């Protein structure tokens, strides 16, 4: 199929259809509105269902219902809407229901603003709602990768019976880049014998996250934890010029694109810089990060937050390499020139190797 120019949001939506998604429940919020807009038109064409719910809370519970019935289902929102959905998300994690949730991040906290941000990192990878649970979190950096990860997201959701989050940002959602779709695969999708499909000729299935017996609930938590441990093999990352790098930039999504340009500019000035880009944020590619930073004297995270990813980088490097932060917030986007200045400052100060 030939390449077409598409907005990230529209490309995500089309990719969902091609991944077999037939149900969308959501509530509008900038900067992700092109997703529901596109699906409102497209889903009925393929026999699917689109509902603009009365609220985010209603929407996520519709997702719960459809997922429980075995459907491929998704919702999308941005920061404030994702916060509203947290209750439903933890219920789905508890009840082990597969679904895909898209967060096209905007500036926070509170209502914040509508310009791009990456300040929902903690919310996405650490839980967000209550209880011990994890989402699989995938962070694309190009419109093409949004498409590629969307199909993967639905497969992972079904395989692990767990919600999967696609963590984008306002730039990725709004920007247009050429994309190519693979033909819709009529793969044999996983059977869902646990789904509530009418109980004809079998015992009823129960979908629930309530365990009043503490011993039972502990057992359930252990079962979930084993599943999260198993997810460890799903790590995804990209290395760019890391082999001989003395300074490693780390970023995901849009920030990684900026950092990549900085790597090229720094190299042109004789600075051995490289980029490590986590694509899966949970599970985190810890081993790959450590490998990439083997020769690094220091690491600089580039993110659109006050410093969230940086904490995980320090933790995953086991505090063996100093990790610095360059962050812009509130909808401001790091400029390559400013990041390059920071790289040069670190290298020239001789303090790059000291803990910040």
């Amino acid at each position, binding site marked *: 199929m030939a*390449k077409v*120019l598409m907005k990230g949001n529209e490309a995500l939506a089309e990719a969902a259809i091609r991944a077999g998604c037939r149900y969308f429940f959501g509530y509008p919020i900038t900067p992700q509105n092109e997703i529901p807009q596109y699906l409102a038109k497209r889903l009925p064409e393929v026999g699917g269902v689109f509902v603009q719910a009365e609220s985010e809370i209603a929407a996520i519970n519709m997702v719960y219902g459809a997922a429980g019935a075995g459907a491929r289902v998704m919702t999308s929102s941005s920061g404030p809407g994702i916060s509203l959905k947290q209750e439903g998300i933890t219920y789905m994690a508890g009840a082990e229901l597969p679904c895909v949730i898209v967060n096209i991040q905007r500036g926070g906290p509170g209502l914040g603003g509508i310009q791009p941000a990456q300040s929902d990192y903690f919310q996405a990878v650490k839980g967000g709602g209550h209880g011990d649970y994890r989402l699989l979190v995938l962070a694309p950096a190009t419109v093409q990768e949004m498409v590629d990860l969307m199909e993967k997201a639905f497969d992972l959701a079904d395989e692990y019976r767990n919600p999967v989050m696609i963590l984008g940002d*306002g*730039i990725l959602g*709004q920007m247009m880049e*050429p994309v190519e779709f693979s033909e819709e695969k009529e793969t044999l999708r996983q059977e869902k014998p646990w789904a509530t499909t009418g109980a004809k000729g079998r015992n009823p299935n129960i979908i629930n996250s309530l365990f009043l017996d503490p011993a039972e609930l502990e057992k359930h938590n252990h079962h979930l934890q084993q599943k999260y441990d198993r997810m460890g093999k799903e790590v995804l990352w990209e290395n760019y010029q890391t082999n001989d790098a003395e300074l490693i930039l780390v970023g995901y999504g849009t920030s990684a*694109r*900026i950092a990549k*340009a900085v790597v090229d500019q720094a190299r042109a000035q004789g600075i051995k810089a490289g980029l490590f880009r986590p694509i899966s944020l949970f599970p985190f590619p810890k081993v790959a990060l450590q490998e990439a930073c083997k020769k690094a004297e220091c690491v600089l995270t580039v993110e659109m937050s006050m410093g969230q990813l940086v904490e995980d980088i320090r933790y995953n490097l086991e505090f063996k390499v100093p990790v610095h932060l360059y962050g812009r917030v509130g909808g401001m986007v790091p400029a390559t020139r400013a990041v390059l200045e920071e790289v040069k400052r670190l290298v020239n100060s001789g303090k790059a190797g000291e803990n910040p």
Partner: protein
Amino acid sequence: MLHEIILAGFGGQGVMSMGQLLAYAGLVEGKRVSWIPSYGPEMRGGTANCSVTISDEEVSSPIITEPDTLIVLNRPSLEKFEQDVKPGGRLLINSSLIDIEPKRQDLKVLKIPVTELGREILGNNRVSNMIILGAFVELTRAVSLESVIGALKKVLPEYRHNLIPLNRKALETGIELAKGREFLHFRSCG
């Protein structure tokens, strides 16, 4: 070759579609492209801008902070973005609506009264954006005229294809006007 362009003007002047067309024309030529709109509480009559990258290589950062070319259709856009243009970069100005001189002395400037030209020559100021796009194509050769026409065929729905000849005329008007007419700003001030 890497082209980084910022296009800006009033909402409704066709800034966004001009940028999309440019990106699509690059795609038609097999180049790497990206298009980023300003988005926000903007509306017809408000300000709008977009960033377009056309490159032979992979586009690392699609965010443009220092454009090689700035195309401005109204005065607030000139005032907002002039300072960001790369040293020695290009500035294309819609002089129908911009009655001030650029401050920078190092830019290659072309002023065209595209709003008037659209109305007077083509009888439709809605193709004003295509005149300035034609001038851009002539000056930079970032994409060819035929690729822009090819892009129009892809972007416009079938029932709008009757507008392609008018758009072609507008693009050609811009191309003709740009021929040999670009100058360093300090010479234009005389």
